[in-house]
């Protein structure tokens, strides 16, 4: 049986471990030069920073995952630095790109562990040099030992906001402000549910406490106004309105922004797996059962790419989806283990609901953006250009849903294919149409999942 696993983050590692234990040798593909996923991305060997510095509380978990990753590589057809840019569910074939070379991988069953990326809301000035997503700011620090700036502000919401700010401060950056767009009241309402998360919740409190103790400026319930700066000098400052309506600002040379994560689910989409809108996460997610089975036979999902659950959940889900795959292939699996994982996953999802409620996607910020703010970085489109497509007098008629708005305005048609602007674009269009965001659909996935280069002409073509 030909099995392919896409992704070598927490879900992919545990999935491959399970498959190898059952005697399989899967093709194992990761887009990055090494496994570990974004969360446990390792620095190149010469940097040699220790796990405790890199991963803090997560050091033990990270080390354990890396150990399994390295132990599994010889037991799999390990293909790092390889992008899967298309999948044909009927032909059961993955189209790959490895250092400029095209390739294809045939499979009988595939497990997609494609992870997540930052979810952003545009802020006027967000395309200035020096503005980075929170996740990218963290990766820069983790893998290159390099910060995004020396006077750094963080703006957003969710666990990553506090964690990254803490990591930057610990690494010696001057963290000039941590601005949470979620109000204290919203978080307080979610607190009872969060307590169920135990250690995770405690870690969050620790970071916030540490930042306060070290005199870092913190504000909650803020409304970002604008990022100041220009194209040559980059970011010079950030202004916002605080919860009481007072305007404030800070000078800085870099800003990390992020409002939680969104699944990198383009392959699931291209595989024809149905999607649903997850109200709690406020994301479109591919449909699967708790074990990772989907409506498309032979196609399984695990990890954040199947709905944001975080690294711990991803590890459980990776094992569970591999068991489901094996079970469906007729193998005898440890039923008790599967049942135990199901219970753990269900409990973890309950905590996740509380976490999401504590840092909801700021719909009001996206819908309230001024017309002249840049919405789509790739296409240089402004918010007003998308809003205009919701009007009856738009030259091509009103765009009643997201893909039609894309057709008319080019929103989501650039290099990122809407991965960056899509979430905010949906809120802007929905608000302009006066309809719930669930009604206007989602940008459909189109290959390539990420840009692929045109290869040079074959040698014989040149006389």
């Amino acid at each position, binding site marked *: 049986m030909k099995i392919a696993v896409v992704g070598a983050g927490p879900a992919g590692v545990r999935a491959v471990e399970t498959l190898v234990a059952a005697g399989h040798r899967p093709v194992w593909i990761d887009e990055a030069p090494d496994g570990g996923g974004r969360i446990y991305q390792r620095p190149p060997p010469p940097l040699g920073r220790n796990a405790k510095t890199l991963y803090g509380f997560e050091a033990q978990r990270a080390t354990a995952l890396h150990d399994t990753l390295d132990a599994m590589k010889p037991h799999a057809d390990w293909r790092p630095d390889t992008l899967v*840019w*298309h999948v*044909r569910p*009927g032909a059961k074939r993955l*189209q790959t790109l490895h250092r400029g070379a*095209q390739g*294809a991988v045939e499979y009988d069953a595939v497990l997609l562990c494609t992870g997540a990326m930052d979810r952003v809301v545009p802020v006027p000035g967000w395309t200035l040099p020096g503005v980075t997503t929170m996740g990218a700011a963290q990766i820069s620090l983790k893998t290159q030992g390099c910060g995004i700036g020396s006077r750094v502000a963080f703006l957003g919401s969710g666990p990553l906001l506090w964690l990254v700010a803490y990591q930057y401060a610990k690494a010696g950056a001057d963290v000039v402000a941590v601005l949470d767009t979620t109000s204290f009241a919203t978080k307080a309402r979610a607190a009872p549910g969060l307590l169920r998360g135990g250690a995770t919740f405690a870690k969050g409190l620790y970071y916030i406490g540490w930042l306060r103790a070290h005199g870092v400026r913190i504000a909650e319930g803020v409304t970002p106004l604008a990022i100041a700066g220009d194209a040559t000098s980059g970011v010079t400052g950030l202004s916002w309105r605080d919860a009481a309506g007072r305007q404030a600002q800070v000078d800085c040379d870099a800003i990390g922004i992020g409002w939680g994560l969104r699944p990198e689910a383009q392959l699931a989409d*291209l595989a024809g797996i149905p999607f649903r809108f997850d109200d709690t996460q406020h994301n479109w997610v591919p449909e699967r059962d708790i074990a990772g089975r989907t409506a498309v036979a032979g196609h399984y999902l695990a990890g954040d790419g199947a709905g944001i659950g975080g690294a711990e959940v991803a590890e459980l889900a990776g094992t569970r989806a591999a068991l489901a795959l094996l079970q469906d292939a007729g193998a005898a699996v440890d039923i008790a283990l599967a049942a135990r994982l199901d219970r753990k996953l269900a409990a973890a999802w309950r905590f996740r609901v509380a976490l999401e409620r504590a840092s909801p996607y700021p719909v009001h910020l996206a819908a309230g953006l001024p017309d002249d703010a840049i919405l789509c970085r790739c296409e240089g489109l402004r918010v007003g250009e998308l809003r205009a497509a919701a009007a009856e007098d738009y*030259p*091509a*008629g009103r765009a*009643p*849903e997201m893909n*039609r708005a894309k*057709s*008319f305005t080019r929103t989501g*048609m*650039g*290099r990122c*294919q809407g991965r960056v602007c899509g979430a905010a674009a949906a809120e802007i269009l929905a608000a302009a149409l006066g309809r719930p965001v669930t009604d206007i659909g989602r940008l459909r996935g*189109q*290959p*390539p999942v990420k*840009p*692929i*280069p*045109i*290869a*040079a*002409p*074959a040698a014989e*073509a*040149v*006389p």
Partner: protein
Amino acid sequence: MTTACDVLIVGGGGAGCSAALHLAQRGQRVILLERGLVGSQASGVNYGGVRQQGRNPAELPIARRSHALWQRMPELVGNDIEFTVTGHLKLARDEAEEAELIAYLDVAREHGLALRMVGRNSLHLDYPWLGPKVVAGSFAAEDGSANPRLLSASLARAARAAGARIEEHTRVTGFAHDGALFRLTAEDGRAFTAPLLLNVAGYWGGAVAAAFGEPVPITPLSPNMAVTEPIPFFIEPNIGVVGGNVYLRQIPRGNVIIGGGHAENNADNDASGRPWARPLPEVTLEALGLAVAIVPSLAGVQVIRSWTGIDGQMPDRIPVIGPSGTTPGLFHAFGFSGHGFQLGPGVGAIMTELMLDGHTDVPLQPFRIGRWQSPA
């Protein structure tokens, strides 16, 4: 609920929306029924070439008629659909292909289409970015390109403003004619009646014709398309090749659109009742290879998206246009075989004349629906 009108149109592509506009402008009560949103298939997701060059001679009179409408788009629909006259440069990559270009010059002259043959030396002088494989070209100065995503929707909006009803998300499942009136039934139970019916349903036009007892040998066709990231503008003309295995154009904002080969599809309704089509990676890669042989500096440029849609192809690669052979009041215009985008606006005008006046200036004999039947 049954709604009566003067003319029913099935299919909201370029031809259908243009017909809705032209019929409404002549005072007809028109209802257009479209399964999805207008311009969702062949008319909306094609390459965007607005080309007369290289067409089957039979199509040239329609293309000429359509060309006039393309030039008048701003007054017709209130926006220009990004129609740009860039010229169309059709290239030969060997002597046999060059001979084809030369042979077509006579055909073009007969139909008043101005073509200019460009020999190897001046070709590489005028277009220094062409690769060494290219040996000759034929330039059609009047041709150009437009934004397919805007055509049908803009025509539909103008049609609505002129009084037509455009019913989107209306899948017709029942077709009947009682001798005087057509009666179409939608999936949701709504019914529509009219003495005239225009079938402009693309690939699915074949099923409509079959419903009225005149099946045709139509097959689904899904041209495979890709587009690059924006790069500095340098490819001015719309580029084609003899044989048509690749075509490319650059829009002023910088993206290069590259077509060639065919994608996979399931045009007949699958279990979910929804047709689908999707680009094939190997076909995309082959087209990119052919493109970079013509324009070598495209090497290393990133492709950011690929797509396709569903058109209907006839065995002789020209559409079915004209009155039904079985049912009075029924008219067809479908099966544009992958090159109907330019023709759409003109076809709408021609069908309006045919339906309301009983005749049109454009010769339609080659397109008759009965052409596959052996003479009785």
